[in-house]
């Protein structure tokens, strides 16, 4: 085996790949060969580091130097300076917002410093397509222990004592689920990994599958042994091509190593796993719908009980857990329930991965101990809201969750606290909203999402989500009345009570929390016909400040409605009647001119944009 003096770990998660990580890797390899360093320096493609904002990322080991936003053109200099002369290149390092000095080492960067990695322990460290690297970091040791040294009862007791709860949203205790499946009568049993991560703004499951697919497979081997399953499925979203490819490869390697298939590790235990591609339906994330989809049918949820642990796939006992839940299992078996239970709060143990997105300086994926205050995640790790704007709220839990206002930033992040605040853990999407975000518009966004994704089985969900979206749309166009707020509240209660599955039961949450914490914004739309965040098209107007306009014609050329009049070097003006409020003039006006202003529309100017913000 060749020993290299330096490893270059090129982040190859979807974020970095989209920014050119594969091309960067090729350039690095070519340059290293050109300099004759190929026996000293190894380039490794790793899974997602989580700091997607700064991609493409390269970590130099063993130095621990963190390079970010690297372009192929900078590679020759990087190789010359760092690898040949041993001088790390300061200008390619991370500089925190509002600071001037770069932070050379990954471990010192605020984004990474406060994280606690269990599920993501291998992210950015190993090549996810090489099973040997996983094994070298204690991979499959837990599976070997579970298969050779532990009884099924012992495994379930360990998971139960650890206090592991489902990471997909509802937080059901994993040990109890497994116990029920083990006790249920039946001739065959199944294990299923729910990787149908449909919540917009959440991508931790994708990242785990991309960065460490073997951890999920190992968790499933342990779970299958505990409940007595010999077959399992990993259901992965079709929108995640890289995750699908890596899981497929990992399964092949595990089979080739005798970690899947017949008589695993000579223990007489058989298990095979296969990948099922999702076909694009949000509701398939609901467990009974997901099983229908695996069986080749439409993804309609069904009544529970019976729960999947009693009657699941093809009517047989089935354990279905989310990607992150499965990936926690090997660590618990390896390090013990007491260790896991020492992290987190009384009722929420271990860590949780959150995707920190929206109006936040450091977009990315973070794994933190349960119970950490929201503020620490958003200000500490996330670096707060960029551009000098004020933080308004954080939306947690996707379409099933709710918005938590600035006044509650000290809330500890655990299942119970979030629920009490009207939100929920969900899969862990955290969308940060600033003063430029309209809360009525956000509620409308989620209700339209729910309406579109409702499978149509239950009338309260199918009709109710559409009706709530219609009322919200009316409010955003300035046509709302006081009675609409009451209708929303009563409809919300009906839809929550009358729907069969989680989609409908939680669909009103975005409305209920925004009404609870931001009622004044609804009232501004309804009574003053004003959108305080200047988002709702029908209630705003664009105008050109004659004192700032330099007459450059950029906005006039860009305007799709031909609503801007003006000549070169003469002040331009917008015809309010013709304006369609697309905002293109604002986005093309040069930053140093900033002549285009967004403002509350005068009452008479509102009609022109009617319909422009209507339902699509």
């Amino acid at each position, binding site marked *: 085996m060749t020993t290299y003096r330096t490893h270059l770990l090129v982040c190859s998660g979807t974020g970095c790949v*989209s920014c050119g990580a594969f091309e960067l890797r090729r350039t690095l390899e070519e340059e290293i060969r050109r300099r004759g360093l190929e026996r000293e320096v190894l380039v490794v493609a790793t899974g997602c580091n989580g700091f997607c904002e700064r991609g493409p990322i390269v970590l130099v080991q063993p130095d621990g130097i963190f390079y970010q936003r690297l372009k192929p053109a900078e590679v020759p200099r990087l190789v010359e300076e760092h690898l040949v002369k041993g001088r790390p290149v300061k200008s390619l390092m991370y500089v925190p917002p509002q600071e001037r000095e770069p932070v050379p080492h990954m471990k010192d960067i605020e984004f990474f410093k406060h994280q606690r990695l269990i599920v993501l322990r291998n992210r950015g460290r190993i090549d996810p397509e090489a099973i040997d690297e996983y094994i070298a970091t204690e991979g499959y040791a837990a599976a070997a222990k579970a298969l050779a040294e532990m009884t099924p009862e012992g495994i379930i007791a360990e998971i139960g004592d650890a206090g592991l709860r489902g990471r997909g949203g509802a937080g059901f205790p994993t040990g109890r689920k497994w116990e029920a499946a083990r006790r249920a009568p039946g001739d065959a049993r199944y294990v299923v990994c729910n990787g149908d991560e449909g919540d917009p703004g959440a991508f931790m499951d994708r990242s785990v599958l991309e960065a460490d697919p073997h951890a999920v497979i190992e968790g499933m081997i342990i779970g299958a042994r505990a409940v007595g399953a010999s077959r399992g499925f990993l259901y992965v979203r079709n929108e995640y091509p890289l995750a699908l490819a890596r899981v497929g490869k990992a399964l092949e390697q595990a089979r080739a190593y005798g970690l899947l298939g017949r008589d695993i590790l000579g223990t007489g235990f058989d298990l095979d796993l296969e990948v099922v591609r999702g076909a694009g339906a949000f509701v398939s994330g609901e467990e009974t719908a997901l099983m229908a989809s695996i069986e080749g049918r439409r993804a309609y949820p069904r009544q529970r009980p019976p729960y999947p642990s009693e009657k699941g796939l093809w009517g047989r006992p089935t354990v279905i857990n989310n990607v992150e839940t499965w990936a926690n299992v090997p660590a618990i078996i390896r390090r013990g329930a007491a260790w896991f239970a020492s992290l987190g709060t009384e009722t929420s143990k271990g860590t949780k991965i959150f995707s920190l*997105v*929206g109006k936040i300086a450091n977009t990315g994926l973070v794994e933190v101990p349960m119970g950490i205050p929201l503020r620490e995640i958003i200000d500490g790790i996330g670096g707060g809201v960029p551009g000098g704007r004020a933080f308004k709220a954080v939306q947690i839990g996707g379409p099933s969750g709710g918005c938590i206002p600035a006044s509650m930033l000290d809330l500890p992040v655990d299942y119970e606290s979030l629920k009490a605040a009207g939100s929920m853990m969900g899969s862990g999407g955290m969308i940060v909203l600033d003063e430029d975000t309209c809360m009525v518009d956000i509620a409308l966004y989620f209700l339209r999402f729910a309406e579109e994704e409702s499978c149509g089985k239950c009338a309260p969900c199918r009709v109710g989500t559409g009706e709530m979206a219609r009322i919200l749309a009316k409010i955003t166009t300035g046509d709302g009345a006081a009675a609409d707020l009451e209708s929303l509240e009563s409809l919300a209660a009906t839809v929550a009570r009358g729907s069969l599955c989680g989609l409908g039961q939680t669909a009103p949450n975005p409305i209920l929390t925004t009404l609870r914490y931001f009622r004044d914004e609804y009232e501004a739309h309804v009574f003053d016909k004003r959108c305080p965040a200047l988002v709702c098209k029908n209630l705003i107007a664009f105008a050109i400040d004659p004192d700032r306009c330099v007459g450059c014609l950029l906005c006039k050329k860009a305007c799709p409605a031909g609503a801007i009049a003006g000549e070169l070097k003469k002040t331009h003006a917008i015809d309010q009647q013709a304006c369609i409020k697309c905002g293109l003039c604002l986005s093309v006006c040069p930053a140093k001119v900033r002549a285009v202003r967004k403002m509350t529309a005068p009452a008479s100017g509102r009609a022109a944009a009617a319909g422009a913000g209507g339902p699509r």
Partner: protein
Amino acid sequence: MRYGGGYDGPMCPSKVGLEALIAKAAEPRRALIQVLQDIQERHHWLPPEALEQVAEALGVPLVQVYGVATFYRAFSLSPRGRHVCTVCLGTACHVRGGEAVLEQFERKLGIRAGQTTPDGATTLERVNCLGACALAPLAVVDGRYHGQMTEAKVEGVLAEARRGEER
């Protein structure tokens, strides 16, 4: 890595290679979605003849085949364009101005999301989240990710796709 994708061959159902696809499937009933996905991937839509052949070969009623084909978003029952523009409207993209980007694509192409231009060249789609939220707002054109999109960049992105075709 590709999301979406272009046109890669004639849309002749006889070339669907159904027999081979179905032979792969050990459990015909369960294979329905997988077979449809393979056809969709190869032809970028599901021709009606192909659906009939699938129904017959799998022994599944045609109504059930259509039921599945119309339920899932991954399936298209009409031909898609040589170019596919996908605009992400996940929550992160939404709060960073994704709607305005989509509207600009609609204006420039003269179609609404979900439609294909009359000349069959370009299909415009919206998606509810590609999980690349750091790049928000995001548009994917012919498999290429364009992050931090603005309305003003739309024209250039479309021109780049057209140039790619000429090469």
